[in-house]
């Protein structure tokens, strides 16, 4: 059932690309990722067949760019910046502390599927470093205390409500 649904949604996404070209691959993958949150084998196969490239090539493409998720991510994606400005304002220690607090490493998702911890090489808000983005919301001048309380809030919202 689930598979058929996925397949239909992918079909719908692909409809936009009438005469698919190889250069449409990135956008089609992104559209699918925006829909599903990640790209699994089935999705990759379907899109690659439609665009007219091999599934291996589509996989090679998606794994090259850091933007594509090939695994199911958490409900909340924490993106902590470790760019230059954030680095010298202690991003490394911040990441270490968050890792400890969540009990996972960078790139992993908490076992309950709630939070995925990612890092970025610069989120473009360098003057207000350190910077954290949770899903679409940007937090600036954060420290471990602020981030921990954000995590607590998210946990409370999702387990008590």
């Amino acid at each position, binding site marked *: 059932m689930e598979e058929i649904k996925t397949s239909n949604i992918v079909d719908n996404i692909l409809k936009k690309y009438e005469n698919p070209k190889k250069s449409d691959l990135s956008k089609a993958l992104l559209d699918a990722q925006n829909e599903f949150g990640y790209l699994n084998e089935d999705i990759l196969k379907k899109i690659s067949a439609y665009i007219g490239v091999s599934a291996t090539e589509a996989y090679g493409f998606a794994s090259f760019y850091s933007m594509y998720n090939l695994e199911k991510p958490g409900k909340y994606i924490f993106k902590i910046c470790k760019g230059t*400005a954030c680095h010298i304002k202690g991003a490394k220690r911040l990441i270490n502390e968050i890792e400890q607090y969540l009990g996972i490493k960078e790139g992993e998702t908490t076992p309950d599927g709630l939070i995925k911890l990612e890092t970025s090489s610069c989120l473009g808000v360098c003057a207000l470093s350190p910077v954290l983005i949770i899903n679409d919301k940007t937090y600036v001048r954060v420290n471990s205390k602020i981030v921990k309380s954000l995590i607590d809030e998210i946990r409370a919202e999702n387990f008590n409500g």
Partner: protein
Amino acid sequence: MIRIKVGTATCGNAAGAQKVFDKFKELSLNDKDISLEETGCIGMCYVEPIAEVAVSGEKYLYGPVDEKIAELIFQDHVKGGKPVEKYVLSNTSNEYKFNKQRRIVLRNTGVIDPEKIDDYLARDGYNGLKKALAKKPEEVIQIVLDSGLRGRGGAGFPTGMKWKFANSSKNDKKYVICNADEGDPGAFMDRSVLEGDPHSVLEGMLICGYAIGANEGYVYCRAEYPLAIKRLIDAIKQAKERNLIGDNILGSNFSFDIHIKEGAGAFVCGEETALMASVEGKRGMPRLRPPFPAVSGLWTKPTNINNVETFACVGYILSNGAESFNKYGTEKSKGTKVFALAGKINNGGLVEVEMGIPLREVIYDIGGGIKDGKKFKAVQMGGPSGGCIPEHLLDTKVDYESLMATGAIVGSGGMVVLDEDSCMVDVARYFLNFTQNESCGKCAFCRIGTKRMLEILNKICDGKGEESDIADLMDLAAKIKNSSLCALGQTAPNPVLTTLKYFEDEYVAHIKDKKCPAGVCTALINFTINDKCIGCQLCKKVCPVAAISGSAKVKHQIDQDVCIKCGACYKACKISAIDKK
């Protein structure tokens, strides 16, 4: 009519500008005498959110504003006619004067509403395009050549020359690409221009298209910039409605269309040949040049690729003449350059200065000096391809040649200021880690050589450095520089080379004395409690691993075997009773 503007670029929004905007909206609802607008980044990120109130031509800039202050400003100033002095940053009946700044690229950011094409048109927008269309393409190129404009994406190649090459390539299909990948960590100039004045970039692309004989363009924008992408999409739509993009633009024979391509997060895709591969739907790997893009670029067609800021200068130059640009700057570096000031600096944000200004003036007079009264150590310029400039070179002029002589580069415009608490070996390691991760893997020396360098730097920071390490780093650096195909590898060793050149003593301290003078490398520092301790127990409470013992009012102890060197106690202690050595 009273105008209220709120800066809602990414930095403003992150600091809470949306709430301030909503507050003003709520307060001014149904009031026909008040117009509420959004604008881009005015550059003063350190006092975001920023709002401007203009009453009969007199403008007041406020920041940082929150909902409460917004309410105060609304009651006292907007309604009561009395500015709230306490929060005023600047006031004028004219253009704001920014101390020692000269604004060409940022002429409209923070001034106009980027979502309204009429705002741009009212400030001479698309006038450069109109003037260009009345000239021959070769004349347009001559003006760009005369202006002395050089590429702002990093390499500083003369823009007019590049256009000339693309113009002389014969082909019925050519492309214009705007490089908005902005991959340098610590840099956000391009984002601010795209968010605050998208039409200026589109206008530059159109003029370029006309000059080289292209009718299609792409903006390659990194996907981490969703607001920039949204503003671009809106701007293109509005320009199309005014016949500024599309067929027979403004009644001429010139037709041009612009598409947006989202980058997907690989630093190397900022390199022009990798970028084009990425647009074509391939993995973004650089290829050997020649052939240069001007001969064989996107889908093997002649292509001209320029940076966002480069394009943003072009409309101004065409509208005001080459002289309006080349009267600023030095002999070889003309015009102005935007820099993103960040790190341990008081007034972090975006600044635009005349080329040739001494670094010291940018950091102290504009940037307001170092945070918390600390001591300046270095400024990092040019990101992973650049270097660290030490204090004794602070009078270096900001231009391509002078900066190159220090071992750093102008680069795309990131300036990250480091103070006495930054470890230079750690900074070098940080950049090597970055390039090592971002190397596309095509060239062996870039792929493996950077890894070896990183391993050595890790070793040094972990207190396991050996005396031969410095020579090994130099040797690897030379080899990576000589045997990499693109500038990523060719410049990757620069952060190590400049730190070695100016801060060798810090390397030696790590290697020989097993000390990190800045107190950053955890393996090389110890926290101990000195006799000033009054036993207040603050440190004991914050220690996450219970490494501190001692009863109230008695000097405490840190168990070195348990301590994880997180520094929490050091930060918590109010009487400097904890030493970090």
